[in-house]
């Protein structure tokens, strides 16, 4: 293959992205491997250990992992010309990784639920007692960023998580599990990434998604080139394509908030300026990630 992509994007999305790229660059044979972030990272690291990483490009959920790889010298720096169209916060200044979209984390609820939440604080109210579920930072990169983000917000912070725990909230698994739990009515409220409930709702599932008024956290599904790549040119083309107008339109069509300015948001989302994205610093987040995971785990009594 001319290019090997490791990604944690959902299957259909990965296929669509690759298909669109191939259409734009005929003749390039792109192979992709899709798996959950833990699996992809285990696979990649084992390959690196064995001295023969197969992947050229990585497209995964969170910046933190890429920041760690950057610091370990496993990534290749590349200044993409398309970066100019991105918010500076959305890419690494040295060119090691570029965000491709925004995946925000908000609140979903089952339409049978009595209370319609509008803010994070609502989840700590007595009406939501025992009815809240959220992904665990141990299983989901987005969930870690989310926790780190909220922890830094005035008026929420780790105390908010302690209130949630006291209110009977559970934290487990990834976003898919939260979606199922709320859609099936096992729980009423869930903390979850935006596109999942929006898609399900479009298919008729009894769920709603809200962007809480305090603001949402976001992961950015960054892409990066591995230092060991033997196909640097193709890899660079791929990065450029992801950030290009066409590439970003594909992302929007798949139901994500595109990273590039000036592209319309997919249906079901409020206007871009109504979504308040709470800021987070990737290298800070990386530095503290172990500590934060532990704090979170201690609050929710998760071992490990």
């Amino acid at each position, binding site marked *: *293959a001319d290019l090997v992509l490791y990604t944690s994007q*959902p*299957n*259909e999305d990965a296929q669509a992205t690759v298909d669109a790229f191939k259409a734009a660059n005929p003749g390039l044979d792109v*192979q992709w491997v*899709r*798996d*959950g*972030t*833990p*699996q992809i*990272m*285990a696979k990649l*690291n*084992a*390959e690196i*250990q*064995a*001295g*023969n990483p*197969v992947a050229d490009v990585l497209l995964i959920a969170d910046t933190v992992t890429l920041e*760690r790889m950057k610091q*370990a010298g496993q990534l290749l720096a590349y200044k993409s010309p398309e970066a100019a169209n991105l918010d500076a916060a959305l890419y690494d200044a040295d060119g090691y990784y570029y965000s491709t979209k925004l995946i925000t984390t908000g609140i979903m609820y*089952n339409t*049978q*639920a009595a209370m319609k939440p509008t803010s994070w604080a609502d989840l700590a109210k007595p009406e939501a007692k*025992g*009815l809240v*579920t959220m992904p665990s930072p141990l*299983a*989901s*990169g987005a969930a870690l960023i989310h926790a780190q983000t909220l922890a830094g917000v005035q008026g929420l912070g780790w105390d908010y998580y302690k209130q949630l725990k006291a209110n009977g909230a559970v934290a*487990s*698994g*990834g976003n*898919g599990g939260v*979606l*199922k739990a*709320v*859609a*099936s*009515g*096992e*729980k*009423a409220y869930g903390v979850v990434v935006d596109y999942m409930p929006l*898609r*399900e709702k479009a*298919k*008729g*599932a*009894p*769920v709603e998604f809200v962007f809480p008024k305090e603001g949402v956290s976001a992961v950015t599904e960054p892409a990066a080139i591995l230092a060991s790549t033997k196909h640097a040119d193709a890899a660079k083309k791929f990065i450029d394509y992801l950030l290009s107008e066409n590439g970003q339109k594909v992302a929007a069509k798949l139901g994500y908030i595109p990273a590039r300015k000036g592209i319309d948001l997919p249906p079901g989302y409020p206007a871009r300026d109504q979504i308040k994205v709470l800021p987070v610093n990737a290298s800070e987040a990386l530095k503290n*990630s*172990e500590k934060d*995971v532990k704090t979170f785990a201690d609050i*929710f*009594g*998760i*071992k*490990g």
Partner: protein
Amino acid sequence: MKRSSHRGNSQPRWLFPFVVTVIFFLSVLPLGRLAATGIASALQGGARNLLSDPGVWQAVYDTLSTSFLGMVAAVVLGGGFALLLTLFDIRGKAMLGFLFMLPTMIPPQVTALSWIGMTGPSSTLLKALGLAPPLGAPQPLYSIGGIALLYGVQNAALVYLSLRAGLLALPRDAVEAARLAGASSWQVLKDIILPLSLPGLVAGAAIAFVSCVGNFGIPAILGIPASIYTLPTLIYSKFAAFGPGTFADVSLLSAMIAILSIVGLTVEERVLRGRDYRVIGLSGQVAVFRLGGWRWLAEIVLWSMIFIILVMPLTALVASSLAPAYGVPLGPSTATIRAYEEILFRQAVTRTAFTNSITLSLATAFGLLVVTVLTGYFLVRGKSRLAPVISALAEIPYALPGIVLAVAFILLFAAPVPVIGLSIYGTIWIILIAYFSSFFAVSLKPVVSAFRQFDPSLEEAARLSGAGFGRRLADILVPLVAPAAGASVILVFLIACNELTVSALLWSAGTQTLGVAIYNLDDSGSFNLASALSVLVVVMVVAMMLLLELLAKRLPKGVVPWQS
């Protein structure tokens, strides 16, 4: 050792080197490679002081308790079925036996989810009865007991097949003699039948235990919400937060799993040691007890078990494959077969996955049978001092979570194989080898226990007829351990067909397996597609089992586990 092959020992000279080579490649090499990386990374990355973390020990404890209880549940369920269906005059044995195999085919996470659904607030069943708990009520399955229960359901077939093979080797007159001695049915069971079929029962229990130790799907879904971590889920969370110390931690946790499974194996050895199971003379007929007035009750119990462990999860699976979206109430107006259309006609991966999984499973099941018959023969007949070591080494890969084993194989094969320069990474061969390694124990157990019950004079008679080792193997040994061999093939096939965690890391374009395809669909939110594919897998397995049924007359007696 070389001498022993001259020593009138019935094994050919090459058997010992063969077994050692097999064990080396399937177990020692991958485990050793993993340990090497673990140690290296512990040295440079400064392994965190994992062992002082009380959470780890809690996880060890939870792993042990869930696995032990799960094994008990599997023994009760699988053992009960095996006894009732093999020894008693139950009607519809073939059907019951057939259906009992199927739950193994439903992926553990599907079973777990359907049970949660069945017992949760949106359960149609409970709603209909007016018993549905309120929205958000605590889920009783999120507990040690819940995990163990589902372990039991998932692994019951392992015990069933293994014990059944043991029961079929039971000499009829031994049972009759006990009854005439005045022993009640219960006493006969306790004093004669169970002790004599102990190798099969213990093998089944041991493999169920080891299987529970390494299970990921069930504790991931049922354990984590209740903050119950087992070693496999702990390992997964280590991989999720991949850091410099991860390999060291994972190696250490894997070593703990290995120790747990060796503990299990030692218990098994203890139980079986110093006893004689060699059936003297002819067996070929099974005693049948009459249940009399109890028959109705037994049949009702059996069918309700089938309903709970098969029909309910399967219904849930079918229902979610027909639902347009998750959580949409299913009714005639909402049901749609769009998911099936999508899976069958649009998703290219479906065909690839079916082809790959069927090929891999068949190749693994039959390939391993060859290996395990030879190894089993060596272990039971060889009287080698290495035998316990070899059994333990065969066992460990199955106990490790698939992700760990897969990592070990990536470490081994990501770079081209030295000397030959051939690279199998990214091809289907690496998955095949990993399957061989992982399912070795599943295949070996029933065969070893069958050899334990084997009357040696049957082989001696064949030798004197002039039959060399290969000949005896084909004509006498394999046909006589046929029920066990059949169990071994069917178990490996069923488990491999469904397998996810090993192939999840080893697949690449074109080598997707069914497990990977289902997981990927499910993980990316296409629950109905995932369910539809699962349903198709079950349908395929049922079709293959029916095919086997047609072949049953040509196969040695007892091979087809639902036929008596």
